């Protein structure tokens, strides 16, 4: 299970966001370059197609692979009151043969994308991960070197935290309270809900970036 919120930020403010996150999290950022392949199962595996995501971390000296399955989100009145999305998610490290394995099982590539950006992992009531990345698409199959951004002027911000069915409410509270700190720069919402840009973003970014004029 995981709690997740998403938001967008204009590319010009990404540096300011990084400064803000650096100050809030207290850890250094990690570079992010992930090739995400989304596979869909073929008809031989049942009527309902299942979807599986393979994430290849290209930032490591030796590319590492992770398989992830994202399930349905929590529904109901309780879910509506929570400001983050709680959904089932299963993740595991796998060897590089995972792609072959899924092809052999009958999965076919549905789409792929490349995320380039940075991420912060820290502990603040829960183990929270904030990723700020530009989402790139590949014009040719698997051509990660020739990826172009889907939206050049806007980057995606994602805040996720693993949770279990017992503690998801605390984790959700931790995530939402952390997100309040980011309010001057961006609004975060459940995936699927659009937020728009925050009007104070420019001013907040300017103040974060400026060296002079900093008083109490």
């Amino acid at each position, binding site marked *: 299970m995981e709690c997740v919120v998403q938001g967008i930020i204009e590319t010009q403010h990404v540096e300011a966001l990084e400064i803000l996150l650096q100050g809030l999290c207290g850890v250094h950022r990690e570079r992010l370059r992930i090739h995400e392949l989304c596979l869909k199962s073929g008809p*031989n595996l049942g009527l309902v197609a299942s979807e599986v995501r393979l994430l290849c971390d290209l930032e490591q000296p030796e590319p590492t692979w992770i398989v992830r399955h994202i399930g349905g989100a929590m529904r109901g009145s309780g879910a509506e009151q929570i400001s983050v999305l709680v959904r089932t998610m299963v993740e595991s490290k796998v060897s590089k043969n995972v792609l072959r394995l899924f092809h052999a099982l009958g999965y*076919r590539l549905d789409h792929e*994308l490349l995320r380039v950006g940075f991420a912060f992992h820290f502990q603040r009531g829960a183990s929270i991960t904030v990723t700020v990345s530009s989402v790139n698409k590949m014009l040719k199959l698997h051509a990660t070197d020739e990826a172009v951004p889907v*939206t050049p002027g806007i980057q995606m911000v994602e805040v996720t935290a693993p949770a279990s069915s017992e503690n998801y409410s605390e984790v959700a509270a931790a995530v939402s309270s952390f997100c309040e700190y980011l309010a001057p720069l961006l609004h975060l919402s459940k995936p699927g809900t659009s937020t728009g840009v925050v*009007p104070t973003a420019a*001013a907040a970014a300017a103040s974060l970036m400026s060296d002079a004029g900093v008083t109490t």
Partner: protein
Amino acid sequence: MAAMEGIQDQSQQQQQQAAPPKPAAERLNPAVQQQLNLESVKTRAISLYKAISRILEDIDAVARANAVPKWQDILGQFSMVNLELFNIMEDIKKVSKAFVVHPKNVNVENSTILPVMLSSKLLPEMETDDNFKKEQLLHGMQNLPISVQIEKLKTRIDMIGAACESAEKVLAETRKAYCFGTRQGPTMVPIDKVQAAKIQEQENLLRAAVNFGEGLRMPLDQRKITSTLPMHLVDVLTVGDGVQTFSDASGMYMKNTPPQSSINATQGLLQASGAQLIGRSAASPSGPTGATSFDNTTTSPLPYANSPRSGTNMMNTPSPQQQTQHQQQQQQQQQQQQQQRQKLMQHMSPHQQQLLAQQLRQSSMPGLGQNQLPQLHDLQGQAQQKFQPLPGQQQMQFSQTMGHQQFQSRQLPSGHVQHGMGQSQLSQGNQLNRHLSQFSGGANNALFNAAQGTPSTQMISNMSATMPSQSLLPRMQLGLAGNPQRSHLLSDQMFNMGAANPGGMMPMQQQQQQHGSQGAFGNMQPNAQNLQPGMVALQNATQNHPNFSQQRQQNQQ
């Protein structure tokens, strides 16, 4: 609290005072009464007193229970009480001059506090403080007349007021200059509506792409592998894989093995298993040269727990992969045949089907790689060894088996006996024969054509579905996949019959009129006759082999 209580006492005393001394009809001065409704003040004071006492009790109870008090509630109640008291005091202050506090009851409690409360003099600290401030204010002016003092103080106040105003102005101006904004917060630059719409559009694109993959899907025809794969995919995807994996399943089959596609369109995994079975069953002809038990009926060729000879009928077969990779070829062949028999009896387990499907896919890859089942190569090699000699030898080999079979039991259908199967398998064989009767004519025909004396390589390549270019037989095998459960028996039959009598297929065909899986013939050899069930296109088919015909007739029951 003491002050509050004192004031409460005062108010209560006032009320009591006003009423009792003149119980007759005297009321308060009407003017005073206008200003202050004494009755309401009384009720309010009483209710406030009750509220305070209740709160005190609650706090007391919490303290006794050592529980954590709900500070929010307590603070709320305090603020309520505070407000009420303030209101009462305000009202009383207006008319306090009309009232006199007259202590009704002086006792031990009151005696110490009453003088202080009743005195009009300020408390000592307050008095000194007051004097000090007065001193500061009227410094140097105390000897002047009072009016002058008043004027001077007024001018002082005005000056201070003016200074404050100018200071405010300056602050506002500097704020504007530095864009600090008002005290309420940073200045909000209103976003252009057009720009906002654009941003909204971009945002929707981005969110859809990340969450649902919209805008990232490439149509199949555009999916071409780049010439250079990125590093992390180079060793994961071979070129062959790439081409296959990104098309639909049917497309994949189409590219490599057209017959397979047609089969797939009809029957899916079963076909794969059928092909596999056929491949395995093709090992039977090769048996004689390699297997030691071909000629020997008494040996128990299958030392496995689940072999039919062990008495446990149709137990779970070990996975084909496990067997083929770890056994000698002879055992492989025998085991495969055993498995095939058992599979016929049980229905194909999904696991095996998947394995076979997997093997089929692997085998259908154009670049049959090193990771393909070794058995195929082995069998192929064996078969080649065996069948490169003249077909006559084939016949010899087969006739060996056939004779053997016939020797064992006439009841046993020819196609059923694999090398060295013991008599305990006869019952199974009978059952299998009945299955045989259900075989599709098409499958039979395919094998018949194979057995008809076309190049021996055809039979050899039965085992390998991966050699479409090398021989047409694999396609025929795939064509047989329409009836996987029976196909291997058919192939056995074919081989056996073919060996002994290539022309003796007629009975079989007649037998198999009942069934048609004609879809399997997309891949027939050009010179092969696409024999429909019950076709009599085999003009050269003659019933030379009496034994066969006998058996066929039996099968036709």
